[in-house]
């Protein structure tokens, strides 16, 4: 990967703490607390709320100059206590920032010390995620936070409540760990597909019922919808675990190692072969036949591929996305005969071992502008609009943030139907 410039021009990267916030937003009753200065959380709230058109519950430990000198340890303790007292969340999710990671606040000891001082908060689960702003992008922050959520909450029994949820007559459960490349609409679709094989699902985090944009019965300043704390407790009972996106592999491996649950990593769910692989795996482990509905969707996709093969083939496409999404959409495009002439990922992506039939570089949207001039289509987040406008190349919005197109969070890009829709969107953008 060649480093052409020393600055990042028109970044496509989001901060890791934003990814952390996103993961926390998929957990019911949670209040996220960013250990940093107030701007860190303000920017994340703004960015996520213009993407999802939703309120974003995220508080801050509001660090100031003296905490920079004396450390933010006390601030963190106070922040957790104030958030717990004022908002009465079921869970508090804390993430660090560039500021606190640079001077090295020990979040674990701060929490331990708070628990000693405030025995009444002993039962309040607090999840600590380390997300320094200077390592990785949204994907890395999200990944670390999902791992932290599982390590802290999975299998923990709540002292005050007995479980009693799983009945032996109930359908077997599987755990789903969707990556941050999936929209709430995608997660919804994913759950439906898995349920159609006779499973109950536990989804961590579950954005499909928190950030899907629904009218709440009553507005609240903590996360509404998302994975229930009881579902975390039931994770060890799962018969299998599926993680989606390569970034989620480690989280899945954690469940596998800890609870001896078979784990399958599904790097992509967009495209015919990617979906086939997933569906065949589901059919195999469930011992059930593939539902008629899915076969019908598949045959519709095949027909679409045939009908439009000529327009799909030979298109020169520039993609700039976070790694998992780049892999998903990129491999689907190659599968239909398009040519990926530029592929820029927001960050390195951790431990990326998948091979793609085109070179991928870490790059910003200024690089996209420099390279995509003779492309037929740009696929990037809304911030790609400057490059697309300047080059007069059509621009299909994908990733985050998408703030200038309606309905993005509800959009589906996965499965046979989502793939078909993605190809339609692509073709419609071209004309």
């Amino acid at each position, binding site marked *: 990967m060649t480093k052409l410039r020393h600055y990042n021009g028109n970044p496509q*990267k989001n901060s890791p703490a934003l990814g952390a916030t996103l993961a926390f937003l998929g957990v019911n009753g949670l209040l996220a607390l960013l250990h940093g200065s107030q701007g860190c959380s303000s920017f994340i709230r703004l960015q996520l709320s213009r993407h999802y058109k939703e309120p974003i519950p995220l508080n801050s430990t509001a660090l100031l100059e003296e905490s920079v000198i004396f450390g933010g340890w006390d601030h963190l303790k106070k922040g957790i206590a104030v958030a717990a007292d004022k908002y009465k969340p079921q869970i508090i999710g804390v993430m660090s920032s560039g500021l606190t990671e640079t001077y090295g606040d020990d979040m674990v000891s701060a929490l331990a010390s708070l628990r000693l001082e405030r025995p009444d908060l002993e039962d309040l689960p607090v999840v600590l995620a380390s997300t320094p702003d200077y390592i990785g992008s949204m994907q890395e922050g999200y990944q670390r936070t999902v791992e932290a959520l599982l390590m802290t909450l999975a299998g923990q029994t709540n002292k005050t409540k007995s479980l009693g949820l799983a009945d032996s007559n109930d359908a077997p459960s599987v755990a789903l760990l969707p990556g941050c490349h999936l929209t709430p609409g995608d997660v919804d679709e994913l759950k439906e597909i898995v349920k159609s094989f006779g499973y109950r699902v536990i989804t961590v985090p579950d954005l499909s019922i928190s950030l899907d944009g629904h009218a709440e019965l009553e507005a609240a300043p903590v996360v509404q919808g998302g994975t229930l704390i009881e579902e975390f407790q039931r994770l060890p009972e799962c018969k299998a675990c599926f993680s989606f996106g390569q970034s989620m592999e480690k989280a899945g491996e954690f469940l596998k190692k800890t609870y001896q649950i078979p784990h399958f990593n599904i790097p992509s769910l967009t495209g015919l072969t990617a979906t086939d692989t997933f569906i065949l795996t589901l059919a195999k482990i469930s011992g059930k036949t593939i539902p008629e509905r899915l076969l019908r969707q598949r045959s519709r996709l095949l027909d679409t591929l045939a009908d439009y093969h000529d327009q799909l083939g030979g298109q020169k496409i520039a993609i700039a996305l976070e790694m998992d999404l780049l892999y998903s959409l990129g491999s689907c495009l190659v599968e239909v005969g398009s040519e990926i002439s530029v592929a820029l990922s927001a960050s390195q992506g951790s431990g990326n071992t998948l091979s793609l039939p085109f070179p991928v570089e870490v790059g910003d949207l200024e690089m996209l502008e420099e390279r995509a001039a003779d492309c037929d289509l740009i696929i990037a987040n809304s911030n790609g609009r*400057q490059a697309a406008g300047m080059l007069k190349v059509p621009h299909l919005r994908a990733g985050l943030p998408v703030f200038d197109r309606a309905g993005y969070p509800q959009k589906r890009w996965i499965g046979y139907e989502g793939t078909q829709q993605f190809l339609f969107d692509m073709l419609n953008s071209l004309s």
Partner: protein
Amino acid sequence: MFTNLTKLDLKDKECMSDAGSPKLCMKALPGEGAERSCAYDGARVVLMPITDVAHLVHGPIACAGNSWDNRGARSSGSQLYRRGLTTDIMENDVIYGGEIKLKKSILEIAARHNPKAIFVYATCVSSLIGDDVEKVCREAEAELTIPVIAVNCPGFLGDKNIGNRIAGEVLYDRVIGSAAGSDEKIPLSINLIGEYNIAGDLWGVLPDLKNLGITLQTAITGDAKFDDLRSAHRASLNVLICSKSLTNLVRKMEIRYGIPFMEGSFYGIHDTSETLVKIAKALGDPDLVERTLVYVQKKEEETRKTIAGYKKLLENKQAILFTGGVKTWSMVSTLAELGINILAGGTQNSTPEDFQRMKELMDPSAQIIEDTSSAGFLKIIAEKKPDLIVAGGKTKYLAHKTRTPFLDINHGRKLPYAGYQGMITFAETLARTVLSPVWGHLKREFPPREGELDD
């Protein structure tokens, strides 16, 4: 390295002990959820609308990556200011320091983008690892033909207001008065300070100034060109539109360049007229005063006639108002113009004077919102059950969850609300929001309770 706060004119204000008043001198409580953002944000709000310069953020991705090109400040010319430029500090930079990367970035940006100047913003992490941004800027400037200006605004210095002040200091020290040409005053010319041309607000006011024969030297900083800012000291009058956080700037300009200043607002019919007349008087031209008085009367009548229909639709509606800066009080009279009553009002990032002025203008029965967090906001909506909420975009989607009509009046909006034309747009938009048929659907129970089916 760190900005000396005593230099920033903070000392000239007493802390307000009044409930709900802006906590200029008070620290935010960790975890409470008040949303006051940081000094870096405050500095970028003031400086980033300058159109033909490059804005380079020396920090990790959290500072620029989450926020670039996200404000509605518009430009009639260069789009360079909308570019997100950052050194994107990484782990290795934290360990080894980021000065070399910063300097190379400055030189590369100068070569690629050909800016009139480069503003370099220091952030929490760059300050903490001890990067001397000012020194690097000086060094880079020596190799270039354009100014390279350090803005020392790490977020931990405080909230947005402090950042506004730092930006004012930077403009005063490094930009204003640095033009090579004449220093002579331009007659009947003004600067509009704190006007950021959000959604094109400035363009709504310019025709009125032009019709009256008043020249705009520059707005600080909406749709501003760097060279016009450099000559800002040639204006005859400074008009402070928004955010008294730039009071430091106008005071210093008065001392150094002898430019008097006044405050004003272009939100609402009453405030627009009052401001135009005050400008005319302050410019000291009897002819101008006379034609302004005639002009504003004519415009007021025209505007009132146009919005009469909307007023009829909105009259006696009950509102909650939550905003900052000059809009705090200016919006009170704007809503009053449409016959809307204010049930409760709150503010953030305003000065104590703005807050006091809002209080005086509101009905004494109106409640002051003390808890400005989302929890406090929801509580007051539940208590007051307003017909509409007028606030900044941050609360928009929360308000929608309460199924209450909401109008965004801050930087996220798409339509200009300033001046007479802006008042018409405001009334139009507000009526469309409040009278939208969707609120009825949102409040209807489904499935209907038994016995209600035939209603």
